[in-house]
């Protein structure tokens, strides 16, 4: 009787994968690749629809220089100037309030009190704020400013609601950037006797600046397309209004919503305006996104070495 040890050692021939395993592998590959395609279809479709349908309205120079004052759904002409101005102003006022607050919250979380009870509470608060639906943010500003404090509906109230939506995005982006700034940089600065606040403003923030700018720009692009606060906190005006504190105010999402109720889909004039405003909004957001990318290049911390840039 020969034991297994007596037989000459021979490498097992490589057995091919069973059909079932090969099939499962092939099916999985097809499915995951398909899912990417499935995700890209709506993206391309949405952008194509907006560009194809919006081009008609946007091509006229009047679109960029005139408001919709004295226009009706049956009178072609007019433009989106009032809406562009309104959206940009509301976005800027929102940014002016949220950028400093957001950056200071992030500085507090990273540099001062991340582990203190307040720090943990603030992290939790940012988490909640991230999930607050825009309609709830708008209702809160309504309950606070309009119902309780008695202010009229205005563009400024919209900006305040947008602050609630922009703040968590800025905090998260800034926090993330500050955390990857190496501790060596801070320690080197402290070793030279530089006070902490100067270390933060001169060393830490510049090192993370490019990422912070990206975060701020993306947050700005997001809030500019928000519609829910507009519906609750300010009426839509067809005419110019540069005053943030009184009166109705135009805005691109507001203009789009106004067109949907003015018979877009059936009547070609509001339909053109609807898609024109949509294209303008997309262009505005694209410009901001490009600015974010350029900002990254310009403010990239070249002088601080590349050790943490990748």
């Amino acid at each position, binding site marked *: 009787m020969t034991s297994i040890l007596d037989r000459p050692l021979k490498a097992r021939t490589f057995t091919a994968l069973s059909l079932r*395993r090969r099939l*499962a*592998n092939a099916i*999985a*590959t097809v499915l*995951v*690749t398909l*899912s*990417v395609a*499935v*995700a890209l279809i*709506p*993206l391309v*479709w*949405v952008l194509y629809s*907006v560009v194809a349908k919006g081009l008609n309205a946007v091509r006229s120079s009047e679109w960029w220089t005139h408001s919709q004052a004295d226009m009706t759904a049956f009178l072609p002409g007019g433009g989106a100037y009032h809406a562009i101005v309104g959206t940009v102003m509301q976005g800027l006022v929102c940014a002016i309030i949220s950028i400093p607050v957001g950056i200071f*919250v992030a*500085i507090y*979380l990273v540099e*001062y*009190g991340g582990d203190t009870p*307040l720090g943990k*509470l*603030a992290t939790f*608060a940012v*988490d*909640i*704020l991230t*999930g*607050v*639906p825009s*309609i*709830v943010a708008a*209702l*809160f500003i*309504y*309950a*606070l400013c309009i*119902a309780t404090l008695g202010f009229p509906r205005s563009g400024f109230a919209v900006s305040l609601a947008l602050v*609630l939506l922009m703040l968590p995005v800025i905090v998260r982006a800034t926090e993330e950037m500050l955390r990857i700034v190496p501790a060596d940089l801070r320690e080197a600065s402290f070793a030279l*006797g*530089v*006070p*902490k*606040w*100067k270390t933060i403003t001169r060393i830490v923030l510049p090192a993370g600046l490019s990422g912070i700018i990206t975060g701020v720009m*993306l947050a700005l*692009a*997001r809030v*500019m*397309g928000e*519609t*829910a606060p507009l*519906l*609750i906190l300010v009426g839509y005006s067809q005419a110019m209004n540069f005053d943030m504190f009184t009166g109705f105010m135009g805005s691109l*999402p507001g203009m*789009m*919503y106004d067109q*949907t109720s003015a018979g877009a*889909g059936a009547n070609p004039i509001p339909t053109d305006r609807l898609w024109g405003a949509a294209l303008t909004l997309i262009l505005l957001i694209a410009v901001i996104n490009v600015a974010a990318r350029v900002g990254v290049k310009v403010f990239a911390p070249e002088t601080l070495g590349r050790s943490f840039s990748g």
Partner: protein
Amino acid sequence: MTTPNPADAGSGEVVAAASVEPTATRSLPWGNGKRGRGDRLFHGLSEGSGVLIVVLIAAIGVFLLVRAIPALARDKENFFTYGGNWVTTNTSAMHFGIFDLLQVTVFAALFALILAMPVALGIAIFLAQYSPRRITGPLAYLVDLLAAVPSIIYGVWGLYVLAPRLRPIATWLNEHLGWFFLFATGNASVSGGGTIFTAGIVLAVMILPIITAVTREVFIKTPQSHIEAALALGATRWEVVKTTVLPFGRSGYISGAMLGLGRALGETVALLIILRGTQAAFGWSLFDGGYTFATKIAATASEFNNQYKAGAYIAAGLVLFLLTFVVNAMARAAVAGKDTR
């Protein structure tokens, strides 16, 4: 002190003697000592901002509650079980309740979630394991771009572009599978497109990038050693994913899905544009119209003219706030459980 020659007698004593430890002096500018004015101001500002954000969250809850209570006190119906028509014009006898809103909101969000979850999983697996490195970045960027499109644009696209294309599918489902409650004829026109069917598909597109981003972030953290071990055992690419990436990333996937659900529950304007408002009761059909919390509030918001009327809608907003809060907390808990394991 001169260094003793180790060969000399008694030199051991010198070596054995405790050396004098230099006392540490705190020279750090933010230690217990005095801090400069700039430091105090800066610390104060950042701490103040931290406090502000906490106060903001508390204020959201408090103000919504305070504004909702007077209206709730005048509600003649049970706020949680009344699903009928809202009557808020007569402020002494108001009729409002969230039963139908809750059903429509949850139904539409769950439908969107069921559509989006498998696709998001596929994309996350593709980006983490399958895609050539060169195109991973651009592809991830494109998927993220889906999140950059404003929701109102999704709304008008859904109603004016997508809905007409879905009409044949919707009518086919309704005609052939109408016996099943999901495809039964609902309270909105099937061919009109203003249904939860259309809205859910649009919502699915909107929450796709969120689920994908969170899932992918966890998937790419799968330890390389696990993957290599699976490969060494002769696993195919799919088996690698099944045995290493999926078990490792399950919590991230659940968390991403929850965040997507939270977003879907609170989505306002896309649904406001697509869904046909109706007074008819909700019947759990995909071809129903109706109002979600957010669309109900947004549709009536411009008519808020007294505190009771506004209060009724603010009460609905408060429920939505709590609902999204719970869903988001579940998402955080899913990931937090992962970290401690």
